[in-house]
């Protein structure tokens, strides 16, 4: 586990303390602890079913934790008198009434939280939904359009905090770049963003901090640079068996894999010497930047897709 760097001086906008939740006798979130600070984008990364959505629901007061505490802006979300003006939430872009027009969906929420109707039009424009799209019923929207509507909805109350569940789902590459820019700007103005994703690349591209969750537990968390700067060396050879034997002889720890590059817990020079001593010709030798993170994430994903792997 990668240690988190905790800045006790900074304000805490979102905080999960030992959050635990059982659903149907299964523990879906277990002892999840993290915090998000102003001016940062935190990526909440994990395979589907890892407990991301359940955690976000507890933060938003939609589900009650069985253990631990979820705090937003220093208190319980439920105790915020008009939460829409402080916390923007997008838990599922598909969750809009199909028979309602896009603009009306925003106007209803604007009315609820006391936001002038003019802001609805401004936001529709900002997220790239033109007047024709705003008049259409949400049932006719593509997932990408729903995400844009959902982002507009989250930004409606001019919040300080954004909690977004899989906001990039259904966006095309151009849409993703646009969203990254939007979130970056929000954080640079002092806002706090917590967004979840099941895609490593997506989070890597935008997050300052990352929390990796698998099987309901936090597997790693820290700043993006900390998590990406894992030590080790990636090494690859045509003669895989010879390479493995050489590394073993040198007493180096090798993370198993079937074919392809090996991740070795040693500096490149040490690995190169071991290969040289073993008479193995290398095809690739490189410091393993982020490879550890990728491997961890890959293992989590593999576990979640194959809950019962074949015996050893």
């Amino acid at each position, binding site marked *: 586990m990668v240690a988190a760097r*905790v800045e006790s001086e900074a304000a*805490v906008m979102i905080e999960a303390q030992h959050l635990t939740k059982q659903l149907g006798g299964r523990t879906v979130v277990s002892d999840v602890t993290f915090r998000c600070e102003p001016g940062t984008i935190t990526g909440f990364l994990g395979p589907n079913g890892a407990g991301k959505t359940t955690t976000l629901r507890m933060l938003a007061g*939609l589900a009650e934790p069985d253990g631990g505490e979820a705090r937003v802006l220093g208190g319980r979300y*439920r105790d915020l008198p*008009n939460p829409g*003006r402080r916390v923007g939430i997008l838990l599922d872009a598909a969750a809009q009434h199909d028979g*309602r*027009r896009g603009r009306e969906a925003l106007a209803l929420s604007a009315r609820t939280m006391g*936001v002038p109707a003019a802001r609805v039009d401004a936001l529709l424009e900002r997220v790239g939904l033109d007047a024709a799209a705003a008049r259409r019923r949400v049932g006719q929207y593509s997932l990408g359009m729903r995400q844009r509507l959902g982002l507009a909805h989250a930004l409606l109350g001019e919040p300080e905090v954004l909690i977004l569940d899989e906001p990039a789902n259904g966006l095309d590459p151009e849409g993703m770049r646009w969203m990254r820019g939007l979130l970056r700007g929000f954080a640079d103005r002092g806002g706090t963003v917590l967004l979840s994703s099941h895609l490593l690349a997506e989070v890597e591209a935008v997050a300052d901090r990352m929390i990796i969750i698998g099987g309901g537990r936090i597997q790693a968390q820290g700043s993006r640079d900390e998590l990406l700067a894992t030590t080790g060396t990636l090494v690859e050879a045509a003669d895989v068996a010879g390479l493995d034997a050489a590394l073993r002889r040198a007493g180096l720890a090798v993370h198993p894999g079937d074919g392809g590059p090996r991740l070795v817990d040693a500096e490149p020079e040490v690995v190169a010497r071991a290969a040289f001593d073993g008479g193995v010709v290398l095809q690739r030798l490189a410091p393993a930047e982020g490879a550890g993170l990728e491997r961890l994430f890959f293992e989590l994903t593999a576990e979640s897709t194959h809950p019962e792997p074949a015996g050893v």
Partner: protein
Amino acid sequence: MSTIATRTAPLVAPVPADTTGVHARPGLGRLVGVELRKIVDTRAGFWMQVATVVLTAIVVAVRLLTGDAAQHTFAEVLSVGLKPAAVLLPVAGILLVTSEWSQRTAMITFALVPQRSRVVAAKLAAALLLALAVLAVSIASVAAGVLAAAPGADGTWSGAGTLIAQSVVYIGGGMLTGVAFGMVVLASAPALVALFALPIAVSGIVSLSFFGDVAPWVDTRLSLAPLLEEVLSGRQWAQVGTSLALWMVLPLLIGAWRIARRAIVV
């Protein structure tokens, strides 16, 4: 890791105690307005209200164009003319609740208003206001029809005032029963089936001689029908009370408890 150490230090969270201005809790009146708007701002919701008004006009017209003139009294036409509203309003009431789950907007609604009882109260008030508005339109069409068909006959308007007052209980009770069923079931189709099939099943059972004359006390189809036909006696009012307690108040309590307690997972 220094996580443990920082736990003991007070959290420095910039949370103003400001609960005024834009951070003030939305008032109940505003929430009722939003819920009313939700009833008619979807395609299905809008056309259902239009259908209620049009069907009422058709039913009133047919009633006045058929049968003999002696039956064209306000009371006779009213008991027919309120049927479309009596059937369709509870459906709108169910959908006002269940669409939040079937269309998954409950996540938005309860994220904006985390005090769930306030949302429930706003929905009940909105349902009642809509029922009163539709009732007013229906009564107006009945009155206009009767005026046009048989304005002068003796006894045409007898009991009109009382019947209108009683129709508020009839329509309002039906509407809230619909909302209550929606709250208990939280799914459109099963709630609709329950609303229309359960009373029939229960009235079939209680009509068995074994139950003696308990039927009018528990069967809303027996207890509420007289509201549109005659001036109720004290005993009849008591029957309205017990049957509505069973079909309206009890499901409302169960439904409110359910919404307050369960996680909003849709």
